[in-house]
């Protein structure tokens, strides 16, 4: 005699990221990338999400349900990276996408810190654009991610 309902991932979902936020410990957004046209009141939603993630302790798990999606977040010193994903996405894969992004920033900015992101916002976005498009992962090889930005830097030096 089997159970009749259990929570489950709906397997027909798109499996995608809805957004990525980069936030400092004070809750200030330093980078925000929405992959679906954000909802009407997205600013207050964003604030709410940030509040929820910042309030969590290190012992708590890196995932939390939030309304229609799931948040996957990771903290690096004073910076939080928060990804909103749908229920078909693989949480650990997203957790490591975040880490790969951080490593790629590190590689380009040479020990990245909050200020690097702020003063080079365009570059920070550009790197992310190479990794994730329309909410899907496209490239995870750090050298290839950095290729276009290096082309650009060279052009400027000339």
């Amino acid at each position, binding site marked *: 005699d089997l159970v009749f309902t259990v*929570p489950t991932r709906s397997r027909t979902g*798109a499996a995608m990221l809805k957004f990525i936020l980069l936030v400092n410990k004070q809750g200030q957004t330093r980078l925000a990338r*929405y992959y679906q046209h954000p909802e009407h009141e997205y600013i207050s939603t964003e604030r709410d999400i940030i509040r929820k993630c910042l309030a969590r302790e290190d012992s708590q798990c890196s995932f939390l349900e939030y309304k229609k999606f799931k948040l996957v977040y990771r903290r690096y010193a004073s910076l939080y990276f928060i990804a909103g994903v749908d229920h078909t996405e693989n949480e650990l894969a997203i957790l490591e996408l975040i880490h790969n992004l951080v490593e790629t920033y590190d590689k380009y900015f040479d020990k990245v810190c909050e200020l690097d992101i702020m003063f080079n916002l365009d570059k920070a976005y550009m790197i992310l654009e190479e990794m994730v498009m329309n909410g899907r992962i496209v*490239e995870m090889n750090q050298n290839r991610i950095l290729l276009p930005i290096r082309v650009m*830097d060279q*052009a400027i030096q000339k």
Partner: protein
Amino acid sequence: MPTVAKGDGMRGLAVFISDIRNCKSKEAEQKRINKELANIRSKFKGDKTLDGYNKKKYVCKLLFIFLLGHDIDFGHMEAVNLLSSNKYTEKQIGYLFISVLVNTNSDLIRLIIQSIKNDLMSRNPVHICLALQCIANIGSKEMAEALAPEIPKLIVSGEIIDTVKQSACLCLLRLFRTSPDTVPPGEWTQRVVHLLNDQHLGVVTAATSLIHTLAQKTPEDFKQCVSLAISRLSRIVTSSYTDLQDYTYYFVPAPWLSVKLLRLLQVYPPPEDPAARGRLNECLETILNKAQEPPKSKKVQHSNAKNAVLFEAINLIIHHDTEPNLLVRACNQLGQFLQHRETNLRYLALESMCLLASSEFSHEAVKKHMDTVITALKTERDVSVRQRAVDLLYGMCDKSNAEEIVAEMLAYLETADYSIREEMVLKVAILAEKYAVDYTWYVDTILNLIRIAGDYVSDEVWFRVIQIVINRDDVQGYAAKVVFEALQAPACHENMVKVGGYILGEFGNLIAGDQRSSPMVQFQLLHSKYHLCSAPTRGLLLSTYIKFINLFPEIKGQLQDVLRNNNNLQNADAELQQRAIEYLQLSTVASQDVLATVLEEMPPFPERESSILAKLKKKKPNVSDIEVVKEGKKSSNPPTLNNSAANTPDATPVSAPVPVMAAAPVAAPAPVQSASDDLLGLSAGPAVSAPVTNNIAAPAGGGGLLVDVFDTPAAQNNVSTSLAPQAEDNFFKFAIKNNGVLFENDLLQIGVKAEYKGNLGRLGLFYGNKTSYPFQFFTPTVSCPGDLSSAMNVQAKPLDVNTVEGGAQVQQMINVECISDFLEAPILSIKFSYSGSMQQINLMLPVMLNKFFEPVEMDATTFFSRWKQLNSPGQEEQKIFKASFPIEGDTSRTKLLGFGFGLLDGVDPNPDNFVGAGIIKAQSSQVGCLLRLEPNMQAQMYRLTLRTSKESVTKRLADILLKLF
């Protein structure tokens, strides 16, 4: 010091950012930002010769200001200009601004399409990539129409470089999802599937996402991808980490690609070809084996990447649900994770195991972990993990362990987090019912629920216990005894009073023989709670008292005293007053025989699925009904109370408790009955408030039944396709109300009761036969003419009967889903035969755009900034018109609120004017809408100004509003 050295650091930007960081207060920051915005504005306006570098700098500043949470309402044109720059860096910033700040509905899209086209044709691959990325991120229908034909060749043509292929895949994915028709399948589709074989893993990664999307839509056309994905996966998992140097991440070969391939395979059933199937199983086994190997690195990145693949493999195993061996291995693996020191792994293991619990192959294996899960429930420090433990206990529950699991959940409920209590209550209630062998246990469990977490016990739960007690005579005496005991607690929850009142009213006689629970004691006990209860509960208790008058004639006098009490007879609450008067009168004039007939015991409820289940599904949007999936496999389930054939509950105690009505067949069946029928959960259905009024009022609100008879034309005796004469007028009346009479003639009356939430609506139609002869072949059909069919899903439940007897009423439920904004209304066409002649009536179903409108609150600043943003042509609609109704502030307010606007007081300096905001919630898009309505008393005119982001919406809303004032 900041490292600005990289690339082309912009000094002005650095200074601005430093200034902001140095601001001591929010006000200072705001001031600095305003200053900067003014500066940028003047630069953009004044100096036409602004060079690329400066434009870039300002656009970066705007981006930064946007991130600080400010709306950016200019700079778009400058960004568009940057697109046509030849400098990569300027072009890039232009694209960045557009894809971060511009939404897909914007008029700007039209302006940038040409630039994108030019870049797509460029010889420079980095330019092509920028254009493709932009489409991939913000592609709209318009873009799809203009650009889609260019894209497939960028994927499949031989000379194209890899990065362009990758971007083109995602670009096509976007266009396909936005507007599938613009991307017709062709030769390219097969070529795309073969990209799974591409030697470049970046290309495979991008292509897999595209194929996943295409295959979800038409799996049959992409079947071939299964074997290709399996062989690709096999090559990855069997390779050593050095083979895929570039795509190895912490000793795990291509983890993200593996996850995607495993997910793609979940679109399909297990492969039929034995070779492919064998190969896939080998892969899955290898992945499970690797989990047991010692880690190649101590870094968490290594184990995360490895486990990401493992969990996705387990998802695939569960999805296929055909390999007992793999299912049990997966279960054992997850069992290990349940005790892992990483919280993340414990969370995910609980989540995945919940899926395993529903497979007949692994259900028993999952049950072995019950003790661990119960410990998790008690000891986990993170509420999200505890929540997963609750889910899993619920999932693994069956007859063998139900008592233990329910007891553990009840115990946990005492201290459970508030956020999950309501859901836990529902789950306990469902399990207790589903697995009750002994219904005394079920009754005890529900009463415990009310005792422990009364505030979280929703109506569905206590309705359900009453239904079950009424339907099972073996438990009635016991139920009466235990509710009586429960009511003796000094502080007892109101839900307990409701259940107690109802059950004692029906079955109090079963315990009345005991002196300790004599009629008088029962009555005094209930009545001692009366003054503490809300009006609906008092109403219920009054019904209990009239039932007592029948059950216990010896205390009639005391009961009549209560009914006669001025607090009741003259109660300000019309419902209570009416009950008191009617019950008093009934008890005075009716003979004992009549009383006994009118107030006899409730007949059993028709058996049906639990309404609690519906409520739980509604609460958790991601809960799907596994039973549906598994139905084919297990047909041996004995029918119990809850899994009977009917799957929508209709009548519940809300409608039924009306003792007066139970034996009064003359009364029309109460149409407003189904509070718990309602899957949307909109009407909280004030319990037991309907009864007395129901048999007096017309079916759906208002005294329409009596009034409208005189002004309706004679019955149409001919069959036609044109709309019935009153159709349009009545239709627009529904713009500001949900319930009422939609149509009435000499033969037929149609009442409507509707509820809406988000983009969903549910209408109950009540067809009343006013004649004394039957309507035969009675068939209402609903259709969506023209464009409407793509803007709206309408599902009408067919009637169970095709004859409506004279004087009878039948009910039909219609579900509506708004996909996008729309103009027309669905057509309701009713055909029936009356005295041998065919009748046809065509009506517009009262579903209009503003039904999917939700009010929005905002302050004046926000309102004005939004208002200013919506200044493009077509976004505003202004009408000046003569008032059709007397101009009255309060009436207008009511109308606007009924229409769905949130009214913003104090925004308009003139207090006679109205300012409002709302949002249309269609499935495909949400459209914000702002309104200003200025009445002019002298001229008896109005000026109506509407602004929305979508022209068609603005027009339609204005048209409807015009009819209301």
